[in-house]
């Protein structure tokens, strides 16, 4: 047997290794649901169905209340495409904005408007990293930990950010795959604003700014950055 396994086997697709590497799991995430080190969710492998529930069919408008604003937004998305199914991701994103995450209620509402089963939408929602199928804090801090950023110290940055926000339910600090901003490595997307390079000293002021609703690290925002190409500066 190979393991000097210290923990009982946890039933995760990562199996033993995920359990062994427990210290890598962000503290913040442990508080809600255990997460894999790399931001992926612990899936419902061990979940049986609840036999007292009714089967989940297309929600009937007669018994499903949908906020008017959400309905209007989803219907507008549906109208944009030749096939309304294309609006699945925009509809889920809208439902997530309204509900904070893709809760069962949010998905049922989106499914009711789109005349799809909630199963269709959870299948889509759980495929994409940005659609949250578990409750999360409202401040999204995605820290890129892919190769280029980690070569520039992203793992330490993630750790510091998680320490700094530990215990704060308003924060959703998670490792993310390459965010497409390796020129400002190590970087993070803070409520959709790209900032970098972030030094460890930036972390405390950054978290403060997020808490107060101020623009995060204004001088390090990507949108202000000029091109590095000498040819572009003609």
């Amino acid at each position: 047997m190979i393991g000097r396994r210290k923990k009982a086997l946890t039933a995760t697709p990562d199996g033993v290794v995920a359990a062994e590497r427990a210290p890598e799991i962000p503290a913040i995430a442990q508080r809600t649901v255990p997460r894999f080190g790399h931001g992926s969710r612990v899936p419902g492998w061990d979940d049986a169905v609840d036999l007292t529930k009714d089967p989940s069919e297309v929600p009937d408008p007669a018994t499903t209340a949908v906020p008017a604003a959400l309905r209007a937004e989803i219907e507008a998305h549906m109208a944009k495409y030749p096939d309304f199914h294309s609006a699945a991701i925009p509809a889920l994103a809208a439902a997530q904005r309204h509900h904070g995450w893709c809760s069962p209620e949010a998905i049922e509402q989106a499914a009711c408007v789109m005349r799809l089963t909630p199963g269709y939408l959870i299948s889509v929602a759980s495929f994409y990293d940005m659609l949250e199928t578990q409750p999360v804090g409202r401040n999204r801090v995605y820290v890129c930990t892919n190769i280029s950023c980690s070569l520039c110290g992203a793992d330490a940055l993630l750790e510091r950010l998680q320490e700094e926000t530990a215990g704060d339910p308003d924060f959703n600090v998670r490792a993310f795959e390459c965010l497409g901003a390796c020129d400002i490595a190590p970087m993070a997307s803070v409520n959709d604003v790209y900032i970098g390079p972030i030094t460890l000293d930036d972390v405390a002021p950054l978290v403060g700014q997020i808490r107060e609703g101020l623009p995060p690290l204004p001088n390090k925002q990507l949108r202000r950055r000029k091109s590095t190409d000498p040819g572009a500066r003609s």
Partner: protein
Amino acid sequence: MPRPEQETISFTIDGNEVHAPKGAMLVDAAKFGDVEIPVFCYEPKLGQPVGACRMCLVEIEGIPKLQTACSTPVRDGMVVNTITDRVKEAQNAIVEFLLINHPLDCPVCDKGGECPLQDISFGWGGGRSRFIEPKRHFVKPLALSPLIAIDRERCILCYRCVRFSQEIAEDYQLVLQERGAHTFVATFDGHPYVAPFSGNIIELCPVGALTSQPYRFRARPWDIEGSGSVCALCPAQCNVEFTVRDERVLRVLARDHDDVDDGWLCDKGRFAYQSVHVDQRVTNPLLRVDGELVPVGWDRALDAAAAALTAAGDATGAIAGGETTNEEGFLLAHVIRAGLGSANIDSRAGGTLPLELHAALHATALQATVPDLEFAHAVLVLDCEPVDDAPVLDLRIRKGVRRNDVKLAVATSRPSSLDPNAAAVARFAPGMAEAFCAALSCALGGSGVLEELAVAAGAGVDEVRALADVLSTAGDDVVIVYGERLTDGPRGEHAARGLLNVAGRLVAVDHDGSGLLELPAGTNGRGLREVGVLPNAGPGLTPVNDPGLDTAGIAAAAAAGRLQALYLLHADPLRDLPGRATWAAALAAGDTVIAHSALLTEGLWEHATVVFPAESYAEKEGTITHPDGRVQRLRPAIARPGQVRGEWQVLADLSRRLGHDPGILSGPMASKVLFDAIPFYAGLTLDAIGGRGVRWPAGPAATAWPKADTGPFGLETPPHAPTPNGVLRLGTFRSIWASPEVELSPALKFMHQHQRAELHPADAGRLGVAHGDRVTVGSDESRVRATVSLRAAVPEGSVFLETGISVESANALDGGLVEVAPE
């Protein structure tokens, strides 16, 4: 729509030249050269290949990369290799990958012994694994529904089950969640996967990840034997294979027949076999002695029945239920007509239809077949709900729409589960099919004023017009699927003529691929009419001089004391037939009620004087006739329990006692006599019918079907739909789950139906009731209690209730208008 034509090409596989149909996928084409290419995800029944499992990689000359044989159509001159080292390495690799996280708990796995993963690992695997990390383990097994257990450790993510749910049943409840190595099969938010066809995923699963809860650990493949027959629980008559161990049916599997079921089964067909082996089965003849039903010997029961029938003479009425076979119906008619001189025999619930209309509606030139549903240009679903009336046809209609772009038109009173697939949908008031047919035929260019007819039908003019538009512009091949209920009631014959007028405008006579397809109320509804279980027709639809009473007439006459004996063959009027109050009176008033039944349902328990134990469908031999004219053969899979005798034998014995020996000593003899007596069955033999059935309308004897005028007919002005003024129009339906077999099968107990009143939210608002409230529905004479179920799709002004259920069934109500009031 023309069916794809088959052209043969030749290609080379593993050095041998092989002929195969053009366009076939290599996996299938290889079989023509006796080469098996292993697959997991490929299943042609599920539609386009997905190429996910990568098990079928083969080498094709001229293509550098290995190709998936499941998705590569064979071409003339192709050179394919499946046994080169390169292919073998790839196959070994895929098996190794698949087994990385497969628990290999075969000794305790239900699938062991009949498992494709076992077979393929043995046949194409490398026989070793270099994966020394611990495997993943999960809690197992878990419930996926009361019928299905899921074992996610064993799942190899072949996509079959979710493809079934999404692309075949289209219930879209079973989905994949998460992605990559985390992907798993599940439902939304822990809801159970309960749907009419969910059981098919058990059969599709190539590993032991999805297992049948009722079958789990009941048998190993070497303990069992398979026995082919036909499911007799509904008119769809799917071909099945019973899994039998020690004279018990333990499982029902599909026996693929493209012309009948396309290889699928509904959950009733798959799990209601349990009702065969319940304690409630009647296994002894019973006789009512001093008010109690007591077991007696056959002779005593037969003598008592013969004596009572002799005494009643022509004051006898007989009802044959839908599960009656052709032979039994034929013999019953013989007993009633020849033995007793009575003509009071019926197998339809809805009244007498003139013979020429029977002949016209099923004229061979107008007869559509099941595959026509898939290849037509347009299908009209008229006054029926396929998923309830003949479930497997629902899948066939969906398949046509999805794969062949069939234009579907739905015209029903109650919202249909096919509505989302339809190109046009029209609603009409319950029971107003006559006016609707008149309106539709008018919109298709017939006579009348469309606005008036549509209003009479309670339908929207624009909807009718849109429906007509879809049907008339789709193409030549139009199939009309209609429910028997369309021709029910006192005005049934007018509705039938209206239907024929619609057909006359849409269906080209004698044109293959189009026509009418009736969904009878009973399993063998069509066959029973053909063998003469009608008040106005003898065997082969021959006219009788003095027509007898129909079902409603028998009830009324018996209730009024004009009939002394009632003969109920596989029928319990209190459960199955409308007019519950009249029937209750009829059963109470009759001196003698003779019943053939496997189960003592309430009407029999209280009123039967003689009960003959009946065979279950797994024990029967005989023939039944599919709605499209296919005569199919029931074959006994297990021995009869207790004292049960074949119904043909009981009826023959009874007939003999009544002085009219039909000379039948065995089941096959009964079939022979039947085939000889029915002109259009001439030439049929049990051998010819075999396991696949024979469609007589396509045979040489079809010319013997009586000629009839198929229209167009001049129509009377149809009556107007009642105005729901403060009250509501009552519509009824019988769900797939409403049957004693379902109620008695332990696995299906959870399906037990409680009466629900389906209402539009606006009506509910006006009545001051909310979703889930308890209400009573009915009039002063009778009421049923129900729970309010709000549905936005229910037309305003109507309420829908279920019939055929054991309590609070809607057959207690007379139809028309009803009040809905909070309880």
